[in-house]
């Protein structure tokens, strides 16, 4: 097990190193930020001064190593536009995205897996058919449209829930969170539902397909032949067997939603990182873009790492295969 962890850790570090190169040079290949930072009518002197101050006059590889050295010390540079440390900037926005995404992905998974298992276990009941019809809807309706409809119906028409913003927040670990307050929760509700719908549909499909497949295997037949009750079979055999594909997709969804909740954040004016990165791309705020992409890569690598560990905990074959 320890060998497995070390192996995966080295892999993760390798991926991060490669990502830092790709991101850094990739971002530097697009546009010249100076034109945006400096007013067009600035003198040549101010212009050169700005270039020097931002370190843009030095060779690219040198800029990269400076960036890397700073990165390793936790310094991701300063935003050209906001003129504040990027880490602080992103850190201030991250909790908003984090709480929104966690709430929607976790509830979509819990609900979707339960409904999917039911639909897979009793494929012919009308309840299952209804569940599947809803999941088709969840897949085919575009997310931005659902967002607008949610606002129109629940916020404008019924007036039950707020249309945007974070509502009341509470400070925990020095950052603001909405979820501990009732008002904050009411603000999270609509965007979370909006984000969750597609994932809910996907989890339903995944769990249903898995359940149908697993219930037909000899493992289940053998458990039945041994006289196990259906409840025990579902709890002890099915849930465990089905968790492997579910956890994989859960991890992928968590990562991609954290990184790209942009549409929902924009519709509900949710001040998360998604909005920040869109704004930064628009004004070519390089340090923010670079830091954001590095953070996203880090996020994915971390999530993958954790998921590999969870796999190793669940599946003895993974555990043995990797340490052998």
């Amino acid at each position, binding site marked *: 097990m320890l060998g497995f962890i070390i192996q995966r850790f080295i892999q993760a570090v390798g991926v991060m190193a490669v990502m830092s190169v790709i991101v850094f040079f990739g971002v530097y290949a697009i546009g010249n930020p100076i034109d945006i930072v400096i007013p067009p009518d600035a003198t040549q002197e101010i212009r050169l001064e700005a270039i020097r101050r931002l370190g843009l006059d030095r060779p690219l590889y040198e800029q990269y190593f400076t960036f890397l050295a700073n990165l390793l010390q936790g310094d991701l540079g300063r935003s050209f536009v906001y003129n504040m440390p990027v880490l602080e900037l992103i850190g201030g926005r991250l909790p908003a995205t984090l709480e929104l995404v966690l709430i929607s992905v976790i509830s979509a998974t819990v609900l979707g897996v339960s409904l999917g298992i039911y639909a897979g276990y009793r494929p012919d009941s009308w309840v299952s058919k209804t569940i599947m019809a809803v999941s088709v809807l969840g897949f085919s309706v575009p997310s931005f449209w659902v967002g607008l409809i949610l606002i129109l119906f629940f916020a404008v028409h019924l007036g039950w829930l707020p249309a945007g913003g974070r509502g009341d927040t509470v400070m925990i670990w020095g950052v603001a969170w909405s979820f501990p307050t009732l008002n904050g929760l009411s603000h999270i509700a609509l965007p979370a539902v909006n984000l969750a719908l597609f994932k809910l549909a996907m989890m339903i499909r995944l769990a249903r397909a898995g359940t149908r497949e697993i219930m*037909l*295997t*000899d*493992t289940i*037949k*053998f*458990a*039945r*032949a*041994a*006289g*196990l*009750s259906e409840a*025990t079979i579902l709890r*002890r*055999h099915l849930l*465990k*067997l089905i968790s492997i594909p579910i956890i994989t997709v859960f991890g992928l969804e968590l990562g991609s939603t954290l990184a790209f909740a942009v549409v929902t954040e924009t519709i509900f004016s949710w001040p998360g990182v998604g909005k920040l990165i869109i704004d930064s791309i628009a004004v070519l705020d390089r340090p923010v873009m670079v830091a954001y992409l590095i953070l996203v890569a880090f996020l994915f690598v971390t999530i993958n790492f954790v998921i590999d560990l969870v796999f190793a905990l*669940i*599946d*003895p*074959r993974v555990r*043995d295969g990797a340490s052998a």
Partner: protein
Amino acid sequence: MTVPALSVQGLTTHFFTRAGVVKAVDGVSFDLAQGEIMGLVGESGSGKTVTGFSLLGLVDPPGRIVEGSIKLNGTELTTLSGSALRARRGREISMIFQDPIATLNPLLTIGQQMQLAIAAHERLGKRAALARCTELLTQVGIPSAEARLRAYPHEFSGGMRQRVAIAIALLHRPAVLVADEPTTALDVSIQAQILLQMRELAAETGTAMIWISHDLAVVSSLATKLAVMYAGKIVEQGPTAALLRDPRHPYTAGLIASLPAMTTPGTPLTQIRGTTPSLLSLPPGCPFAPRCDKQTEACVQKPAMTLDGPRGWRCFHPVGQTAGAPT
């Protein structure tokens, strides 16, 4: 007269598919005494597995037992409720399958899987349960059984996994064990070992067995009596020795003639010509008629089971006998 461990009368299991009704099991009858081993042989698709599933009430939709009676220790199973049937599965009648890799759950230890099978029927203390598991594993020939309880299925060879499955099936000393080709996926030498052990186990515990196989040679070394299945019906049954020496049904005779050990070395093996008919569109009379050398007009009728002491066959023109055709 003692009650047989299992008595099956006219068992009929059909699958109601889109393409039509598949008569997978069509009027199967047999008795199984306590501790007796019956071999159930037949080609692929003849309905052996479905017969086994029917006995345990494990036929999946669109299949269903449409007729017949299954008496286990005198209790009729076909009319039992789902939970009453479940309470008997694993305790009075068990089943093991062909592929030992697929039957065990790869994510649970052997011990956990055995505990689940115990807990399905009894409340046993942890220590008693452990002792029971160890005892069974030792009995089926797994060395250092107690330590192996903590192992996962992938740490066992195929043969060992099948032994574990057998141990699970025998945890509650059932009256009947249905063994669905449990050695087909294994090496010949391991197969022989397991067969030998199973015969000893049956004698020791009094568990009666239905040993399903498409290989007549394998079953005949184990079973005291044989039932030959063809297209959902038992076409011939009787004591192993008599049936092998002196088959009555042309299909049985064909199966025996195709056994390597039964022919002189060097001579080509005989084969039964043609293929198994589709169960969706069986000929109206004897299902074997299209492939049979002895076929006559009489064969457009369904042959009934002709009984002769412990033996029986469904044929108008039994091999080695001139009588038997209806007039």
